[in-house]
């Protein structure tokens, strides 16, 4: 295997850093994300002449930005991972169901897929939040709902073409059950396409979570996420730009890295899909 380009390497390093912070970020700050210090409100980062105790500054309640960013990042990553797993599981399962039963079942599933694809997801998310009220459970379900249709469409497509391959016919002729055929034989063969889809879907979920939290309709205080910190910071742009800029930069670099790694992964995993290097 060729060494990946420098840019991809940097992106991978950054994602590893994000994962590390999400798991073990507490080491970066002695404070909890809710610890207030009203005597040190809106302090700039320490390297810009702020309080030396607060490396990245404090917010309107004197809460340490490092502690808040770590907690917010953890929340954003956790929600995005749960959403991705949920969406991928449901989407892949429904894709298999559609390809297995064909006919009416398939038509129905694909109609729902088309329906969701024809509307901007944020509209669907806002509707459900408005009618059912915000709760953590609904919010995670919403994150799963974002993009499930892509997995379903992709899975159905690849299963239909894989099922007619000689290896699938051979396994079927040997008397294996359909479940065994799908799980042990077809799924591993379509895994790489699904992994690529995963890398496309994950940044989208991060973006929709941060957007909803930014609008005040996602993660609710006392919990916090990157989007929510950013939304908080919008009201303090004139005197405390750092509250908005740090979480925004982290979101940007994370989604950018994810896209770069996703692109590289697509080229690496799927030689048939390999885009012409033009």
């Amino acid at each position: 295997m060729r060494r990946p380009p420098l840019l991809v390497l940097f992106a991978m390093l950054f994602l590893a850093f994000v994962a590390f912070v999400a798991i073990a970020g507490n080491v970066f700050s002695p404070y909890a994300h809710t610890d207030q210090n009203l005597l040190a409100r809106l302090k700039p980062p320490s390297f810009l002449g702020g309080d030396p105790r607060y490396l990245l500054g404090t917010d309107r309640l004197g809460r340490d930005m490092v502690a808040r960013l770590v907690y917010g990042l953890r929340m954003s990553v956790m929600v995005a991972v749960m959403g991705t797993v949920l969406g991928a599981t449901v989407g892949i399962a429904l894709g298999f169901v559609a390809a297995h039963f064909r006919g009416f079942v398939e038509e129905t599933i694909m109609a729902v897929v088309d329906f969701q694809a024809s509307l901007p997801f944020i509209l669907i998310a806002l509707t459900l939040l408005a009618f059912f009220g915000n709760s953590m459970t609904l919010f995670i379900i919403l994150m799963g709902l974002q993009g499930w249709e892509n997995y379903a469409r992709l899975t159905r497509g690849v299963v239909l073409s894989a099922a007619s391959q000689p290896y699938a016919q051979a396994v079927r002729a040997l008397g294996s059950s359909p479940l065994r055929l799908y799980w042990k034989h077809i799924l591993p063969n379509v895994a790489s396409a699904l992994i690529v889809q995963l890398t496309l879907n994950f940044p989208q979920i991060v973006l929709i979570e941060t957007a909803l939290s930014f609008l005040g309709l996602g993660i609710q205080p006392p919990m916090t996420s990157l989007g929510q910190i950013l939304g908080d910071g919008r009201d303090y742009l004139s005197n405390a730009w750092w509250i908005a800029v740090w979480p925004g930069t982290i979101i940007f670099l994370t989604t950018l890295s994810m896209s770069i790694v996703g692109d590289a992964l697509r080229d690496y995993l799927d030689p048939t899909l390999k885009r012409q290097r033009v």
Partner: protein
Amino acid sequence: MWTAHDATAGRSAVAHMLRFWLVKLLRASITLWLVVTAVFIVLRTSGDPVQSLLPPDARQEEIEQFREAWGLDRPLTEQYAQYIVNVATGDFGKSYRDGRQVSTIIAERVPWTLMLGLTSYAVAVLLGVPLGIWAAIRRNTFVDRLIMSFAVMGFALPNFFFGILLILLFSLSLRMLPSSGTGTWMHMIMPAATLGLATAGALARFTRSAMLEVLGKVYLRAAAAKGVSFRDRILRHAVPNAAIPVVTVMGLNLGHLVGGAIVVETVFAWPGVGRLLVSSVSSRDLAVVQALVLMIACTMVAANLIVDLLYGVLDPRIRIAAKD
């Protein structure tokens, strides 16, 4: 020369075109019906519509009137029929917050969103398409890489953060542009740039790949051999052929634009439909939310339909394929 054969061929081409349009129209209607039905189901499963749609201090006669108007005392199938009639006639009830007709409230906001949306869309198309063509012509040069880097950044940079960066730079540091609200054309610059630039990036990326595909075709080499000038080869041969996929993506991007407007209007306190939607969701003003969702969905379906129809006009192969 005109022959009888040509005449029938012409007539049948028109017939196929009409059939193609009818099929598309039918599909759009089905999607629309699905949207209305989905909203109806959500409205009924999330609780008593009287409680969700009327203010908590509604008087008894108001509640009765509402039950009457929406047919809540009748069986579910009749309610559903009544619901469709109400929606079709634009009767969405009253806002929970100020008791005004929902349709009036929305009508006030629509021009603002249209103004912002059309400007952003113009920015996106006028910037994205030429940049994509330019990148394709200069492929693998510095210009190409620069344009494509911006396009990738446009995808990864969330629009709410991009908007905030613009406010920090142009309103707070340089003090050149107003940070929010409306009033002058200056107020429009940052929201339209935020919304337009990200879409321009996506369009540029797509236009570039569509152009590259066409540029590799034999007929362009043939045109070059014939002595067609470079300019004509690009403008008269390559661009029209690349236009087909680009128009589709332009239609799909309208969805991104609508989704983006919801966020961007909130960032810049723009008094449009998107901000109304966000504030209505926050205060759970469900009569307004319901009407807005239906309206935006309608717009999306209509836009997709227009793209589909345009697609048939642009690409004769689609018309011919419809024959089979």
